[in-house]
Structures are given as C-alpha cells and as structure tokens.
C-alpha cells in the first residue's frame, strides 16, 4: 500500500464515518409526489432564467434596429436522439460538412477592442467610451439595464432573503424608485422598454420617456412564472389598441398577456415556453422538455399563433436570443448539465444551422465554462467564460481561482478577448454582461 493509498483510505473512512451519522430523514412518498407536482408546474424553459435574468442595455432604437426578414425555409426535421442518461451529455458536434467554425482553446487569445456595449466589472458599469458609473442600489444587483435616452438604470436586485426588486435609478439625481418584483427583467426587441413581473400579479413595463411603469390589465395565473419576452413599442398606457404584449412561462405553458387585452395560454402543441422574439414577430419557442436527453426541443415560429408551423425546429440546441438584426440566434446546449455550459453558438435564424461557436470538446483540455453571453452587435457575441486555475491554500480554505474572460466571438469566425482576463473566485463573476 502506498502513502497515496493510505491517505485515500483516510479520507474515505472519514467521510463514511461522517456520512453514517448524518441526520436521517424518513422517506415520505407524498412529499416526493408534491415536489414532483411542483416541478411539473415550475418547469420553465431551460434558458428562461438566463434570458430573463440577463442584464440588458437599453439604447436608442435607431442604433440597434434592423428588422430581420420573414421568409421561411424548409423545416429541419427534429432529431430526438435518446441516449443513456448515465452517459455524459455529448456536447453538440460541429455541423456536418464542417461549415461551422468552432473554438475550443481559449487560453491564449489576443485582446481586441473594448466591448462596444456597456458591461459591469465589480458592479461598476463601464461604458464604451471608458466612462464608469456605479449605480447605488439598495440591494444586491443581479441584472442591470441602462436606458440611455432617459439616462437611468433599471436594476434587478435581491436581498438574499427571498426578496426581489426592480430599482429605477436616475443617472443624475437621487429619486430612486424601488418596486417589488419576481426575478427577471426583459426588454422588447428594440430595447425601448423593460418589463418585469410583480409578485403574484401582472406584468409591469417601463418605457423610455415614461416616468412610471404601467401595469398590464390582467393578472397571470400561478406562482411559478417567468417573464420571457416583450413585444411592441407602445407599452405606455392601458388603452385598447395599444401594441404591447408580454409572454410568460407558467409551469409547462406559455401565456400571452396584452397590456389592455386578454391573457391566455398557448396550445402546448405550439409551444410550452419561449426565449425571445424579434421586431417582426418571429419567436424562439420551446416545443418539448424532458429531464432525459436530449433535454429540450426548440423551434422558430413566424408568429405566435396556435398551430403555427415552425420555420425550423431542432433538438440539437437550446435557444436564447435573436441578434439585433434578427438574422441569427444564440444557441446553447439543449441539455444543460454538469458544472456549466461548455458551448455557445451562433445559428442562422432562418435555418437553425450553426455558423460559429465556442465548444469545450477536448476531454483533456481546460474545463472552462460559460457564465453568460450577450449580443454586442449583429455580428458579434460577448461571452463570459470562467476557467479554473490551479488551486491555492489560504488560511482556512482552499481557493480555486478562475480566469474570467469576456470573449468576443464573430460571425466571421474570429475570436478574441474583449478585455484583459481577470482572476477571481468561481462563485462571484468579476464581470457582468449587459445586453440581450
């Protein structure tokens, strides 16, 4: 027996001894049933949280908008491959024919231009011109929107004790407004309006130029809800005829709620959840979800109507957000498992074909994972990546530092750091991306 074996045995015996005395809880079948029912209700789109909680920047519509086309392409047949769930989730493979460009080694990238959209570093918002502002929030921020035209920040915060809020903070002045909210902030495609859910109540929308948010006229059912998309440019007042609708995942159903109109569920055959919507009404929807692989199947619909035929659908990738021009989509793993996403890609919004991506394919390579991504412009993604570094021992704890990178991934296949990589701990991202 080697010394290594002796130490291994020591750890094993110590853990067994500790586990043996762990408090036992009686098996309660009814509790398991109850939790299963709650999960059924709560199952929301896999990427829903990421999309809804993602920080976003509101910029003048003219800067960002180029509505995408609506021509349809032949639908791509779904490929519901069933594999043994005990086998590790295979990372999506590059497109057949090798037309997609994938990057795996992110360790030694050049540093390019600074991000062309604001981002946050240690809660300080850094603007493209180098200006830095720290929005003074009452609670801890998890998402930040900046309404440039109104020079105000709309910040999603939490108090760490179950309380969630939206804080509206003027760039100049101190009249902070704090609203009770459910987790998640979303913007419409033009980013002119930010919306959130009130606890147990209706959607609230705050449009650039409006001093106060407006509440939708009808409440939504259920306690397990997630606002995922906002449509329309006229979310100002509750008047019939105004073009403003919100889409909310409620359990295993997608609901639409109109500012002054009806609130109703979509047919499950059409969608059970959604991720994002374009200016022209195309919408990325989840069609099915399973805890077993492939995890989720997604489609792009030309409009959100009952029994709408999809432009394309696939079980190969989850969908998160359309590019500003509506021509591309950000793709993520269809089944999100393990320590963190090992893949992000740019897909053609009309075909579902992968154009370019970051993928952790090398089993012996670095175990980087993706902590978030946003569109910088219609041709580039900014991707927040964390890579574990060799651990160090501090006074009473082993620290595994991570290299945090904001990586710019271009449609042209280019990849680079958008800022100098920074070392930080694994649970507190140094950077916070802002955008959709």
């Amino acid at each position, binding site marked *: 027996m080697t010394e290594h074996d002796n130490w291994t045995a*020591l750890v094993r015996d110590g853990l067994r001894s*500790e586990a043996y005395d762990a408090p*036992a809880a009686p098996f309660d079948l009814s509790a398991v049933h109850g939790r*299963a029912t709650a999960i059924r209700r709560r199952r929301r789109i896999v990427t829903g949280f990421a999309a809804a909680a993602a920080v976003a920047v509101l910029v003048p519509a003219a800067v960002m908008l180029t509505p995408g086309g609506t021509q349809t392409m032949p639908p791509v047949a779904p490929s519901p491959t069933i594999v043994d769930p*005990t086998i590790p989730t295979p990372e999506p493979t590059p497109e057949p024919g090798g037309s997609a460009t994938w990057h795996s080694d992110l360790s030694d990238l050049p540093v390019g231009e600074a991000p062309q959209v604001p981002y946050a570093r240690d809660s300080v918002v850094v603007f493209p011109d180098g200006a830095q502002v720290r929005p003074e929030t009452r609670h801890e921020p998890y998402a930040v929107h900046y309404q440039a035209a109104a020079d105000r920040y709309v910040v999603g915060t939490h108090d760490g004790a179950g309380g969630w809020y939206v804080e509206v903070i003027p760039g100049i002045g101190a009249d902070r407004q704090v609203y009770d909210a459910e987790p998640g902030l979303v913007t419409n495609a033009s980013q002119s309006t930010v919306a959130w859910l009130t606890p147990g109540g209706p959607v609230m929308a705050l449009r650039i130029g409006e001093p106060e948010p407006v509440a939708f006229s009808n409440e939504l059912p259920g306690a397990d809800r997630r606002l995922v998309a906002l449509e329309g440019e006229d979310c100002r007042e509750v008047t019939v005829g105004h073009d403003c609708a919100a889409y909310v995942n409620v359990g295993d159903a997608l609901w639409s709620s109109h500012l002054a109109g009806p609130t109703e569920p979509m047919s499950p055959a059409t969608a059970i959840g959604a991720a994002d919507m374009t200016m022209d009404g195309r919408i990325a929807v989840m069609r099915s979800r399973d805890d*077993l692989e492939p995890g989720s199947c997604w489609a792009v619909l030309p409009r959100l109507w009952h029994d709408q035929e999809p432009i394309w659908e696939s079980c190969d990738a989850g969908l998160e957000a359309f590019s500003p021009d509506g021509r591309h989509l950000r793709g993520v793993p269809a089944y999100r498992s393990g320590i963190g996403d090992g893949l992000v890609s740019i897909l053609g919004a009309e075909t579902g074909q992968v154009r370019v991506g970051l993928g952790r394919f090398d*089993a012996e390579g670095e175990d980087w994972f993706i902590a978030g991504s946003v569109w910088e412009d219609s041709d580039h993604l900014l991707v927040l990546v964390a890579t574990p570094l060799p651990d160090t021992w501090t006074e009473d704890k*082993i620290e595994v530092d991570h290299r945090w990178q904001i990586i710019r991934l271009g449609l042209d296949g280019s990849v680079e750091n958008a800022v100098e990589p920074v070392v930080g701990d694994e649970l507190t991202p140094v950077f916070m991306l802002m955008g959709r």
Partner: protein
Amino acid sequence: MAQHEDDFTEYARARQPALLRTAYLLSGDPHTAEDLVQTTLAKLYLAWPKVEKRESVDGYVRRILVNEHVSLWRRPWRRNEVTSTSLPEPADDRQPDDGTRAVVWQFVRSLPPRQRAVVVLRYYEELTEAETAEVLGISVGTVKSQASRALATLRRQAPPDLAPTRPTHDLGEEER
C-alpha cells in the same frame, strides 16, 4: 401505472438513505441535503417510466443529485446564504474516533464546491475517475488533478499524528 408507482416507491425507499448521506457530504448541511434528495427523487419520479428499465438507475439518480447541488451553488445569490453550523453531533458508537473524522470533515468542508464534489464522488461514492468526470461534466484530467491536489493539501495540513502509517514513498503533488 400502479406497477410503476410500486416500483418507484420500492426503489426510492431503498435508495433514499444513501442519497441523503451523499447529499449531506456534498452540501455540508442536513437541511439542504434533505431538500436536494427530495428534488432528486421527484425528478426521478417524473422520469421513472423511461428510466426504470435501465441498468444504471443509480447512475442517473446520482447525476440528478449532483446537478441539483451544482445548480444550487452556481446561483448568483448563493453566496449570501449561510450554511448551517449545526452539524450533527458525532455519536459514533461503532468505533473509537481518533480525531481523523473531524479533521477530514473540516478539510472537506473547506474545499470549493467543484473539488469537494470530486472528493465525495471519488472517495466516498468510490466512482472511477471516468464515472466522476461523467457525473460532473468535466474531464478525466481535471478529476485526477483535483483529487490529487486535495489529498496533497490534506497531507500538508493534517496534524503529524494523523499521517497514515506505513508510508512507502512520496508521490509528490501530481500523484495519481
């Protein structure tokens, strides 16, 4: 349907104690462990008609459990949560404890989540390196290095009287 229900109940009842122990080692908190196991079994229940005939239901359940744990500590507000310090009193009536257990447990609790999961799966669950990598969604190389570093650190930090007997050689930092 009734047969499915009976089969699930039988399986869950038999596996729950072991799952609780693993969840406790992963989370370090009995209440979190109980919650993790309940969610794990609920997800298993939902998937039961599809998985019950598979050879390795245990592997599937373990993966759900670890993923639930991972998703907990990756939540951005997780850092605000306070882990319970009311650990169970060691009422070991099986064998005298020479202090090893306390040192090992304190050490494991000090590990960051990823390394801790590797240690629990490798040395408590006794999974192979490949199986551990599968469950955690990381490479075999990382499992090796994380486990090795954990042992090396414990060796450096442990009191001299805890050192295992009969050391034959020093394998160094990158031992396998």
